[in-house]
């Protein structure tokens, strides 16, 4: 066994522990260095992952697989983690619990990475829980903020319930097939398909993953949690944790339970339609930008879920590519909100809702870089051409039409049109509404994180061909039934 293949995960683990230990011995003033250390660790892990692209291997008694799919999602998670740690440098400034913030974020990243490379349902579940437990604590990071506590409490209770449902589903799959290994389940799934146990397992697993992906009607926690958590943490939740649910669902449904396709395909179709419509319509009347982004995140999850319905290599590739671009867009948008929140709180410490859309009034003059980046992110989320959002929607929707699901594509395109309504509202507030307040200096780490995300969004839009091709490669892993 070659330990170099898990070097990215090991790097993150060692960085996480080092940050925790060093942080214990530092006075609060000099804890800023921890953020740089964490970002450095993530960068090294990212470099290690990129350098090992194209490797295929099975590790730890075939429970962990390294393939195009896992590498792709690992890079998604590491990019989100990088944005999270860079933005975290500013967010945790002067906080005595800085080390916990970064360590929990890094541990969550390890969990997500192992979900991406899990080849066994037990590894998948344990990694899923590692990421979930770390993010429960992160959501409640502002211990004195009642909204943050509410966010953490809801996320924790509903998350635990969904974990229990997922485990119950896994136990039925194990009971019927006699194995937890994903490729072996695929090989034995005829027994599942011919019995009512298969449907029970599908329903339980769908609910379990549906909670994490925040599909309507399993979405109840998402708006409250995304709104109440610190914006930087919301970025990790919406851009990272949600993608973890998607990759887990891809592995479990598209690889392991492909024999039950007829059962879950229709369920995913209904969930996709309800989720995207509900998310977009409810987002229209939100006044809190974070809550609006939370509902927009529901809608985006609905689009990605279309890949489960169409199930052609191009559609799955489109869904996976969408996951990458959504990582950049959504993380960037939440970090831009974090920058605005920081500005509002530094002007008025007791501001009741710093993420209210009124605070974006005249942002184009007050914080030009933040406003520009936010514009790029919301246009990308809406699917305006030359951004990552456009390319991913194009690939996904056109493949949907090609395979005959015209009604689904029409609903999705109508939804994109609705979504432009609330995205444009943010831009209107930023550029076209006057304000009396003067220009403020933009916090440096937030700006760096936003620029990285914006460059990513534009690069994926302008130069999308290699990335789309790469996503197709990742999708082909799914359809050949794993390794």
């Amino acid at each position, binding site marked *: 066994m070659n330990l170099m293949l898990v070097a990215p995960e090991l790097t993150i683990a060692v960085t996480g*522990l080092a940050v*925790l*230990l060093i942080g*214990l*011995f530092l006075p609060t003033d000099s804890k800023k260095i921890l953020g740089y250390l964490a970002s450095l660790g993530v960068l090294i892990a990212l470099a290690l992952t990129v350098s090992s692209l194209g490797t295929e291997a099975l590790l730890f008694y075939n429970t962990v697989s390294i393939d195009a799919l896992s590498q792709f999602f690992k890079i998604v998670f590491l990019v989100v983690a990088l944005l999270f740690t860079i933005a975290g440098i500013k967010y945790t400034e002067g906080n005595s619990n800085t080390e916990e913030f970064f360590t929990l974020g890094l541990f969550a990243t390890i969990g997500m990475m192992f979900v991406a490379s899990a080849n066994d349902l037990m590894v998948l579940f344990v990694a899923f829980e590692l990421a979930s437990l770390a993010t429960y604590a992160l959501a409640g990071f502002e211990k004195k903020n009642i909204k943050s506590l509410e966010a953490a409490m809801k996320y924790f209770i509903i998350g635990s319930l969904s974990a229990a449902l997922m485990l119950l589903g896994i136990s039925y799959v*194990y*009971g*019927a*097939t*006699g*194995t937890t290994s994903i490729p*072996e389940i695929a090989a*034995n799934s005829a*027994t599942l398909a*011919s*019995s*009512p*146990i298969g449907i029970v397992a599908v329903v339980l697993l769908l609910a379990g993953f549906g909670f994490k992906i925040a599909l309507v009607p399993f979405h109840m926690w998402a708006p409250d949690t995304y709104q109440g958590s610190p914006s930087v943490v919301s970025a990790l939740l919406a851009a990272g944790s949600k993608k973890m649910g998607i990759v887990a669902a891809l592995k479990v449904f598209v690889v392991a339970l492909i024999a039950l396709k007829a059962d879950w395909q229709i369920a995913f179709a209904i969930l996709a339609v309800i989720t995207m419509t509900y998310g977009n319509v409810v987002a229209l009347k939100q006044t809190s930008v974070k809550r609006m982004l939370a509902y927009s995140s529901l809608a985006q999850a609905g689009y990605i879920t279309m890949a489960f319905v169409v199930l052609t290599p191009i559609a799955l590739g489109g869904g996976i590519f969408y996951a990458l671009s959504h990582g950049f867009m959504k993380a960037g948008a939440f970090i831009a909100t974090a920058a605005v929140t920081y500005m509002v709180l530094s002007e008025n410490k007791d501001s009741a809702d710093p993420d209210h859309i009124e605070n974006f009034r005249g942002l184009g003059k007050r914080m030009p870089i933040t406003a520009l980046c936010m514009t790029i992110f919301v246009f990308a989320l809406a699917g305006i051409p030359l951004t990552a959002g456009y390319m991913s929607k194009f690939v996904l929707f056109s493949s949907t039409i090609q395979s005959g699901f015209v009604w689904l594509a029409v609903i999705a395109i109508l939804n994109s049109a609705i979504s432009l309504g609330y995205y444009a509202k943010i831009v209107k507030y930023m550029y076209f509404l006057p304000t009396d307040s003067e220009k403020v200096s933009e916090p440096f780490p937030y700006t760096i994180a936003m620029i990285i995300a914006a460059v990513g969004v534009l690069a994926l839009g302008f130069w999308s061909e290699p990335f789309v091709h790469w996503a197709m490669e990742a999708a082909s892993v799914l359809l050949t039934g794993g390794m």
Partner: protein
Amino acid sequence: MSGIIDISNIANSYIPVAVILIVALVMPPITMLIIKLVSPRSKASAKYATYEAGSVPVGNARIQFNVEYYLYAIAFVLFDIEVLFLYPWTTIFKGHDITSIATAEMLVFIFVVLFGYVYLIKKEALKWMK
């Protein structure tokens, strides 16, 4: 490869579960009925006093515990479980040709646990009244 559950016989295999369910539902009322019929009744005032190991009760039952008590309890349970984890490790340590890797893995594990211990001490979680 056939599964662990015999699918063809799935309904039959749940009959014992159904029997236990019915027994579980019926048992409590029956027990309470028997108690009502056979047990002696007493109306002495001492019967309604709080039980405090036989002596006369002192103070209110609704006292508050220091929240740190729970922190202690959680830390104790954590380290308790770590010891449990060492136990199966000792039973397979010898005779499977894995001594070197087993030692290395356990050292990593103990090192990480030790980390938690240092963390607890530095965060003053083990100090009673700060």
